[in-house]
Each structure stands twice: as structure tokens, then as C-alpha cells.
């Protein structure tokens, strides 16, 4: 097990390197940090532009730039230089990541609880009215774009705020990850964050809920139709014990790997959700960097994103092996 983990970890290092190369080539050849300077009116002197090119390390060939960037990152932990001064890429990346991470983790938890509960219920009561209703709702959420759902929730919350308390402060927070001047006490701060998390978490959770509940239903059905469940019932175990101890535990295995695989992908959904609720997380960092033609923060963002994909793929593989003893790691 440990040998397998180590080998997989080592194998993912070259993948990560090639992935950074690919990302660097795509991004560095399509994003020109000097474009806003060149487009400025009245035009600014060539020497200024050249000085900026040197400052950002753009005066070398593409392979040389990749090498400089990579060695700077690996050897010195240096993410490169932003076009705007006073922008510490590493620091910004970490602070943005934790804002988003909070949202993604809560959304995954909420979505998992809902998906497992609904998945198990609909599998046990297959083809019942509950099953059809849940399936219909599942398909609806599967087809509902994140941004449409986010805008709907936000507008409803604004309407709700206006009807319940027209002139006071809003009851449901619809903007930002925290109040402009949050309460100073620890509990007050937590409450403030939680209030702001409410709507974005629901949006993000329901998007993944749709596919996870379908997934859980299918795997639960497969387990329920297997011989060992029939045997467990036949030898006289109670229905609830068979369901929870024998069936559910095995039916959770496929879902757990699916969740690990989907987690990195939730980042994309988080970008959209954060944009609508005007959060200052990964989404904001990304869009701001694009608007400013800011090459190195973009690269940092993408390196973190592809690292997350690779790490979560690894976690999915390991989870599968840990949870299902039949799988041998050759």
C-alpha cells in the first residue's frame, strides 16, 4: 500500500511538470502583459515598454522563459512578477484559495449528505413516486447552469430582504464573503462568514448533488440486488441493519472516488458562483488577472488548479484501494 502510494506520487511528478509546460506554452503565447501599455493613449515611450519587458522577463525566448519561471518556482518558491506593483502572487494565491476552499468544502459536505440520503431512499423505493420526483428534480438540477441558479437565488434573496425589512440591513447576505466591517468578536465573525456562505454554498452544492444522487442510487441498486444482501436478509438480520451495515457501506465506495474526482472540477463552478456573489476568492483572482493581462498570477492559478486535479485523481485511486479490499495494487 505504502509502496503503491509512493510510486503513484513519484509518477505524478513528471505529469505535473509536463502539465506546467503545456500550460505555460498556451498561456504565455496568448497573454501579452504589455498589451495594455502598448494600447495606451497617448503612446508611452518604447524604453518604458522595454524596461517593463525586462522586469517581467519577457525579453527572452519562450523556452528560456519557461526554464527561468520553473527554476524560480521550484528552487526559490518564486511565482514570478505581477504587472501591478505590490502584488505578492504566492500570498494572494493562498488567501484566495482559502476563501474558495471554505466554500467548496461546505458545498461538498452539503451535497454529499443530500445525495446519499436521496440516493439510498430512491434506491430502496425504486419506481415509487418519491423516486420519480427525485429523478425529475435531479435531471432539472443537472440541466440548470450554475450562473442561472445563482442569479435566481440571489434575486429571490434580494426580494425577500426588501419585503421583510425594506430599510434595514439585509437579512440574507447576497454579496461578498464577509461584511465590509465585520463584527470583532470571534463568534460574531463566524456568524458573519456563515451568513455570507449560505447562498453560494447552496448553489455549488446543488450542482454536484444532481449527479452524485444519481450515482449513489445506481450503486445502491446494484448492491441491493446482489446475493450477499439476499443472504443477509435470509439469515434473519433486520432490514435496517442490512441496509445500513451491509448495503450502504459498500454502496459508498463508488461515490467516494467520484467525489474525489469531481472536487477539482468544482473549482470551475466556484469561479462562476464567486463572480455572481462578488467574492474575493480564486474566481476573482483569475478574472482580475485576465483583465490585467497579468501573466504570472494566471500561471500560478493554473499550476494550483492542475496540481489539485492530479492530487485528487491520486486520492480517488487510493480511496478505491483502501475501501475495497478486493482491489489489489499491482
Amino acid at each position, binding site marked *: 500500500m505504502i509502496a503503491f502510494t509512493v510510486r503513484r506520487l513519484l509518477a505524478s511528478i513528471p505529469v505535473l511538470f509536463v*502539465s506546467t509546460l503545456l500550460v505555460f506554452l498556451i498561456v504565455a503565447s*496568448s497573454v501579452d502583459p504589455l498589451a495594455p501599455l502598448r494600447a495606451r493613449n497617448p503612446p508611452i515611450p518604447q524604453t518604458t515598454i522595454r524596461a517593463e519587458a525586462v522586469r517581467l522577463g519577457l525579453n527572452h525566448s519562450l523556452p528560456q522563459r519557461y526554464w527561468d519561471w520553473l527554476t524560480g518556482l521550484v528552487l526559490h518558491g518564486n511565482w514570478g512578477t505581477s504587472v501591478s506593483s505590490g502584488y505578492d502572487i504566492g500570498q494572494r494565491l493562498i488567501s484566495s484559495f482559502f476563501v474558495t476552499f471554505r466554500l467548496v468544502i461546505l458545498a461538498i459536505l452539503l451535497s454529499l449528505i443530500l445525495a446519499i440520503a436521496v440516493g439510498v431512499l430512491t434506491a430502496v423505493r425504486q419506481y415509487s413516486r418519491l423516486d420519480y420526483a427525485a429523478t425529475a428534480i435531479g435531471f432539472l438540477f443537472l440541466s440548470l*447552469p450554475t450562473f442561472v441558479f445563482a442569479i435566481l437565488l440571489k434575486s429571490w434573496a434580494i426580494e425577500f430582504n426588501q419585503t421583510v425589512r425594506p430599510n434595514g440591513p439585509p437579512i440574507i447576505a447576497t454579496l461578498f464573503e464577509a461584511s465590509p466591517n465585520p463584527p470583532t468578536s470571534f463568534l460574531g465573525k463566524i456568524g458573519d462568514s456563515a451568513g455570507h456562505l449560505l447562498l453560494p454554498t447552496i448553489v455549488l452544492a446543488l450542482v454536484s448533488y444532481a449527479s452524485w444522487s444519481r450515482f449513489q442510487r445506481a450503486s445502491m441498486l446494484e448492491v441491493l440486488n446482489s446475493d450477499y444482501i439476499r443472504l443477509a436478509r435470509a439469515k434473519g438480520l433486520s432490514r435496517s441493519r442490512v441496509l445500513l451495515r451491509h448495503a450502504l457501506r459498500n454502496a459508498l465506495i463508488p461515490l467516494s472516488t467520484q467525489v474525489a474526482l469531481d472536487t477539482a472540477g468544482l473549482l470551475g463552478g466556484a469561479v462562476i458562483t464567486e463572480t455572481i456573489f462578488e467574492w474575493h476568492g480564486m474566481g476573482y483572482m483569475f*478574472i482580475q488577472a485576465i483583465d490585467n493581462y497579468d501573466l504570472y498570477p494566471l500561471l500560478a492559478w493554473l499550476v494550483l488548479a492542475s496540481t489539485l486535479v492530479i492530487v485528487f485523481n491520486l486520492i480517488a485511486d487510493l480511496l478505491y484501494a483502501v475501501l475495497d479490499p478486493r482491489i489489489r495494487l499491482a
Partner: protein
Amino acid sequence: MPEKNNDDAPVLLPTLGASLDQFVRSGGMPQREFTVKARTQREIVFRRFLKHRAAVTSLIVFLLVVLFAFVGPLLWNQSFNFMSNDIEVPPSGTHPFGTDSNGYDLFADVMHGTARTLEIALSVSIASTVIGTVYGAVSGYFRGWVDTVMMRIADLILTIPAIVVAIIVSDKLSASISSAWYFLAFILSALFWPVCARIVRAQVLSLREKEFVEAARALGAKDTRIIFRHIVPNCLGSIIVVLTLTVANTVLVETALSFLGFGVRPPDTSLGTLVSNGQTAIQDGFPWLFYFPALFIILIVLTINFIGDGLRDAFDPQQTRVRA
């Protein structure tokens, strides 16, 4: 479906009309061996699909949406880029979906946006499915180091967050060539094909060990012939299912990109840009600006998902259960 499949699994289903006829003629004695009718694989799949009511309804609705998008503009009296003097009119007879703050007729806008969204979705799904099928089939057929190298490359592309690279590249491309939606389609196809490649490869890996492949090889068929005439047609079921799922996925990604302002851009419109324009419309008192384009996105993705579900059930050889 190739004829080979019939020998693999002869599926004989009694038909009600014929069996009743036989039943009467034989004097009330059931004669099952004469009341069966052989069907081709294609017929079986088609009949199974027709039994899936949600899928059939969805197919009809989807075709209506396609007609609305592509034939509608020819019949409708207003163009999507014509500014009328009716500013922010609620839905009425002359403007079934109302107008926006510039006097654009939303009905014409939604038609044009739906057409654009569908064009992108269909071209991306067809292109990425064709590339993915060829790639996956070759990789799975040759196995060994060819497979290893090809699949590592595909995996690599999957580690790049699709939406993000699409934003970066389309940002650059549409700065130089405005309203070039086919660039967006090209980028999305370049990012989506590995999904299909992996699914086709997994199927080819098992199909290449089948007897009919061995027989074809014994008869002297070349590798390309075996892959494209014998193996790929047998994967058609999963390929079609992947195709429909890619359509749904592309619609979601394209509208999200256009919503953020990185996909289709003004003066061109897609359903995503229309929703983006109508973002604050609900609070501002013009809810139709948001609801109509949003409704069309949901309609397209929902119907495609149901069609995909129906196709998956229809192509599934193990499927025995009867749909309610």
C-alpha cells in the same frame, strides 16, 4: 449497426398482431416458434428508444427548439440586431418575449442566441467525438507503448481546467477576430476529445479480443479496416451517448463562458450573453430579459440529457427492465 451483431445475439420478439393471428389459426394452440420475428439490432434499439417516453418527448421538444432557432429567423419579422422604438416593453403580441433597454426584440435575440449556442454545441460535440473515437480506437487497438503514450497525452489534457484555458485563449482570439464563434468551438473541441477517447478505448480493449476480430484478421483484413469497419461500428452505442452528453456539457460551458464575457461577444449573441444582459433584470422589473434566455438553456440541456438517458437504455444490451 453491423450485421455481425445479429449472429452474436439473435433477439426474437413476438409481436402482438402476428401472434393473435397465429393463435386463432392454430385453433387456440399457441405456436410460439412461428410467431417470432427477427429484428435487426437497429430496429431493436429504435423500438427500445421509442418506449422511453421522456426521451421521445424530449426529442420532439429539442427538434422544435432547433426549428425555432434556425427556421424562426426566416419567418420572424424582426432581426436580432434591429433596434426598435419599443424600449423595455413586457412580452406582448408584437414582441412575444418583450424588448430590452436598447429596443432589441428579445424573441429575435433568443432565436439568434439559441442558434449560436446550438451551432457551437453541435460542432464541438461532433468534432470532439470524431477525434476522440479515432484516437481512442487506435490507442486501444494497438495497446502496448502506443496506448501508454497516447493515453498519457489524453490524461494530460484532462488535467488542464477546460473552462480556464478556454477563457485565456478565447480572450486573445476574440480580441483579434471579433465574433469568431468557431474559434471558441475549436478550443472547446480541443479540450473535450479526451473524454470520448477514454470511453472508446476502454470498449476497444475488450472488443479487439472478440472472435469476429480474429476472423477478420484471419481473412487478411488490414488494421485500419479492422478498426474502422469492424470494431468502431460496435462501439456506436457508447459513442452516440457520449456525443449527446458532450452537447449538454458544451452548452453549459459555452453559456458560462459567454456569461462571464469570454465566449461569444457582442455584437454576436448566445444564450449566455443574453442571460448576462438580463442579470439584474429581475430586481429592475424586467424579469423577462432573464427568464426567457435562461429557460431556453435549461430546455436544451434538459432535453439533451433525457435523450442521452433514453439512448443509453436503448443501446444497453443487458437492459431487460420495462420502463414505466
